[in-house]
């Protein structure tokens, strides 16, 4: 769906701007490609440390075992100097923040790592940057059409396509998070460790918000301190993920009993 939306935006640009449109499209794609190359080369600067086997054999071996089960090469594992628990992946690399090691036990950390391996296995580490750059392309072409094309239909169609792209992008990203969880459940020796990790991380975030809110000056009304859940959030909530994981585990157990 997303590629059809981009294609439609490209067609509108070509249709209404002709050669100028083609030059804009090619120039933007070339610029975004160079930006992508620059970002990938400079994504790991300060605060990252590449994990060596001797440092945490349980983590290194656990990730190697799961990568093997997933049929992917052993990912590079980086430890990030950040006290906030966090994890993400890019290319064939996994980043785990030091904060994770303070709040989760070994099994739960492997649960988080399994989710990131799930993203690599499912091709999300390639798809997600493409989608992000697709978004910039949509936005830039939309702006060009507004400035250079003085036809209401073209402007409205371009804006509509951008909005549609955003809605589809958010929906797609959420689906990929669930898919990474599903893959993680297959990779883990004890699937419940991912659920437990998410529960602990949810507890951490809720508590952190409470502690932050209580540290604010008292004159601020409490209602304004609550974190708002946006419909444009690209990640599903912890609760949604936990429910899906439970349903998946129960479903698997039920299927096993039928065999």
């Amino acid at each position, binding site marked *: 769906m997303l590629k059809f939306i981009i294609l439609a935006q490209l067609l509108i640009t070509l249709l209404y701007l002709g050669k100028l449109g083609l030059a804009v499209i090619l120039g933007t794609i070339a610029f975004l490609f160079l930006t992508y190359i620059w970002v990938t080369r400079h994504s790991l600067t300060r605060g990252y*440390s590449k*994990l060596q086997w001797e*440092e*945490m054999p349980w*983590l290194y071996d656990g990730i190697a075992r799961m990568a093997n089960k997933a049929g992917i090469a052993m990912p590079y594992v980086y*430890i990030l*100097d950040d*006290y906030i628990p966090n994890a993400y992946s890019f290319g064939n690399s996994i980043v785990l923040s*030091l*904060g994770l*090691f*303070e*709040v*989760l036990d070994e099994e739960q950390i492997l649960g988080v790592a399994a989710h990131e391996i799930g993203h690599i296995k499912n091709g999300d580490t390639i798809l997600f940057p493409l989608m992000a750059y697709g978004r910039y392309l949509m936005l830039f072409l939309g702006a060009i059409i507004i400035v250079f094309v003085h036809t209401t239909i073209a402007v409205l169609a371009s804006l509509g396509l951008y909005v549609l792209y955003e809605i589809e992008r958010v929906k797609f990203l959420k689906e990929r998070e669930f898919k990474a969880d599903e893959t993680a459940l297959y990779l883990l020796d004890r699937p419940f460790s991912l659920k437990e990790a998410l529960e*602990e991380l949810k*507890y*951490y975030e809720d*508590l*952190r918000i409470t*502690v932050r809110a209580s*540290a604010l000056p008292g004159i601020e009304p409490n209602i304004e301190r609550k974190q708002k859940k946006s419909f444009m959030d690209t990640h599903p909530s912890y609760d949604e993920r936990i429910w899906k994981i439970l349903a998946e585990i129960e479903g698997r157990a039920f299927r096993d009993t039928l065999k």
Partner: protein
Amino acid sequence: MEPHEFKLNEEGLRAVLPPLEAEIMEYMWKVKVATAGEVYEHMKKKHPDMRRSTVSILMNRLCERGLLKRSVETGRGGMRYVYSITTTREEFEKRIVETILNALMSNFKEATFAYLSKIKK
């Protein structure tokens, strides 16, 4: 760290720090350097339901208050955060007294001065 409020109905450190943060500081002043895991093990003895997340958040809150500092240590167990005290308990208490007396002297100079003179006698 400058205390911003003083609770008249609380005792000891709890007058200037929330109860759990005060307990963590009591322990940290005793051991001087510790990981969040070590503090968690200590706190769990008194609060069995306490979670690792609570300790981690409170210790980082104490870092923001300037009472603790966090550094990365690479050892046999890999990288980890180690927390250490930035001030002794005596220095901290001295600073509280100075801050409160300065505030009293600038807001209620005569009454404070008169009361302090009375105590001295």
